[in-house]
């Protein structure tokens, strides 16, 4: 049983230098209650995938191909109003910067109440009760008082807690958390991630956790999807992917992360950088940097193929399958 199923999702940006493909043939599934980590370098397409799922791709971007199914029904082709009903109620979102995610001229309470009333048939006082309750649940001290204060009166960590309350208050089934802690200090980051995990456990919501911090993924996610240059190149259980990565990119990535307690003379590194959108090579996008490059890699794009250990898009493994 899957909550979310994304198939061959492709997002394009028409531009003057031709159409740019931000993400291409992305396939994902999220089970109910599951936390799916999504990692990858900057520009790999993590946020874009999230935006596509919640239907907030900014024009002129558009979904060119593929479909998104939530609880088995398509949501990528819903009308404006129908999609609005899905957002917040079915799918919630948390963005990176808590400083700018809250409207500075409305009190925290107003923003919460408004969100609750939009999606749930509740009276204003009931909504207010619920808002206070949510503030309490996300760990805001003295929520009865704080509910009428403005966002600028909160600290960064507190603000991100409010953001979480806002994302969860209509009890969506899926939360897309796009780098929810990047702007926060390490010690606060741990609390926020823990809170998110706790609340989702309580409500049974699934989470897509976008980040480029492998540590966070390791400690939080159930499964992880690795993206590179607009594509998902490897998906698997966290422990598997971290400990035994199969795609050469994932492998290189894991190796190049310095670890506490280990001090190699030289860090293993992947040379070069991820290609820009308009300069993605033919075939496998990773092939120019790949230590295990084969002749076929520059020609043919490997598909994401599932096997017992997970899914990977690499000719090394498709060949294995073929033979």
């Amino acid at each position: 049983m899957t909550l979310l199923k994304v198939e061959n999702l492709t997002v394009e940006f028409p531009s003057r230098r031709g159409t740019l493909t931000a993400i291409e043939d992305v396939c994902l599934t999220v089970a109910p209650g599951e936390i799916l980590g999504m990692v990858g370098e900057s520009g790999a397409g993590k946020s874009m995938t999230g935006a596509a799922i919640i239907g907030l791709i900014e024009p002129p971007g558009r979904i060119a191909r593929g479909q998104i199914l939530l609880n088995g029904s398509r949501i990528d082709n819903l009308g404006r109003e129908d999609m609005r009903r899905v957002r917040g109620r079915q799918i919630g979102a948390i963005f990176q910067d808590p400083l700018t995610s809250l409207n500075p001229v409305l009190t925290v309470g107003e923003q919460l109440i408004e969100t609750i009333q939009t999606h749930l048939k509740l009276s204003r006082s009931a909504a207010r009760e619920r808002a206070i309750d949510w503030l309490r649940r996300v760990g805001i001290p003295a929520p009865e008082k704080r509910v009428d204060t403005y966002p600028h009166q909160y600290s960064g960590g507190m603000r991100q807690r409010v953001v979480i309350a806002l994302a969860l208050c209509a009890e969506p089934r899926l939360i897309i958390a796009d780098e929810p802690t990047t702007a926060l200090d390490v010690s606060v980051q741990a609390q926020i991630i823990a809170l998110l995990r706790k609340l989702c456990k309580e409500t049974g919501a699934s989470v897509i956790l976008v980040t480029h911090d492998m540590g966070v993924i390791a400690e939080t996610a159930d499964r992880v999807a690795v993206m590179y240059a607009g594509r998902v190149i490897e998906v698997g259980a966290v422990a598997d992917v971290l400990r035994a990565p199969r795609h050469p990119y994932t492998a290189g990535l894991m190796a190049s992360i310095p670890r506490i307690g280990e001090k190699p003379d030289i860090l293993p590194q992947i040379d070069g950088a991820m290609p820009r959108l308009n300069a993605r090579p033919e075939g496998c996008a990773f092939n120019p940097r790949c230590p295990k490059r084969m002749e076929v890699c520059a020609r043919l794009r490997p598909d994401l193929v599932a096997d017992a250990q997970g899914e990977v898009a690499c000719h090394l493994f498709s060949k294995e399958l073929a033979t």
Partner: protein
Amino acid sequence: MMHPDDRPLLEVSGLRKSFDLSKPFINRLIERSERQFVKAVDGVDFTIQRGQTLSLVGESGCGKSTVAKLIMGLSRPSGGSIRFEGTELADQPAGKPAQLRRRMQMIFQDPYASLNPRWRVARIIAEPMKSFATHPDPGKRRKEVDRLLEFVGLSAADGDKFPHEFSGGQRQRISIARAISTKPEFLVCDEPTSALDVSVQAQILNLMRELQRELGLTYLFISHDLAVVNYISDWIGVMYLGRLVELAPAAEIFAKPQHPYTRLLLDTVPDISMVNRDMDRPAGEVPNPITPPPGCHFHPRCVHADARCKAQMPDFIASATGHARCHAVQEGRLSPIAERAALRGAV
């Protein structure tokens, strides 16, 4: 802490910097409020030996960058001394005296902001050589630029391009090329990799290690990423709200963290090797630096805090592994922890 064999390249002692954040005079008059200062750096002491790397870690706002700027003369200390090979620099502005400053350079955090977007790369790299007159001849200067570009892993032809034509990692290479163009001995690196992707971070870290080996560089390395610090440093200093709370050799500090804050950091930092560790550890937030808690700044978040911690600022004195600023450590109230090592072993 002192290496007897050699005179330290950089000695920092009692370094202080406060910023005036007072409201305008009239407001203070009416509201009877006091002048307000942020003690961004509040008495920091350390020395760096030639050819070694000292790292400063700590959460955002603890004063790491301010220390770097003070050393480079970008900001004037409110007190304390900075000696480079014994010469006092605390009262010298950036770039002065040229003979000395030429030997100190800096690499910045943001690869996008640290290169002038309107200048060509060659001009950017050549600027220090021109300014410090290490290569007065334009022709030779250009040759040197080409050499440097290749040295940091770019091609000489890249000199004619503008910064926006490069990726973040490449820009950081250009920054490094600029920094080493005057053949400095000492480099301050303020979070040089925190804006980069991990795969690129490894390239830069490797490049820096290589430079250190080849050119005998000395680093002051600033980061909030403990793992990176661990990889690159010989010594590590942990800062909290403007104060250095612990300073010890890199190997020791992770194995035997003394100060409770160091322990907290090690506990909360997400670690790739700790799959599905329970992260829910109440750790509080960093207080407002304008009104830091009295006594030991860390006491509100510290499980070991007692009355003394609330009232009296601990001194920065020798600990089992190096130096620490903690009453509990000094009083031996803290047990040496083996917990962490145990945890790691579990995975």
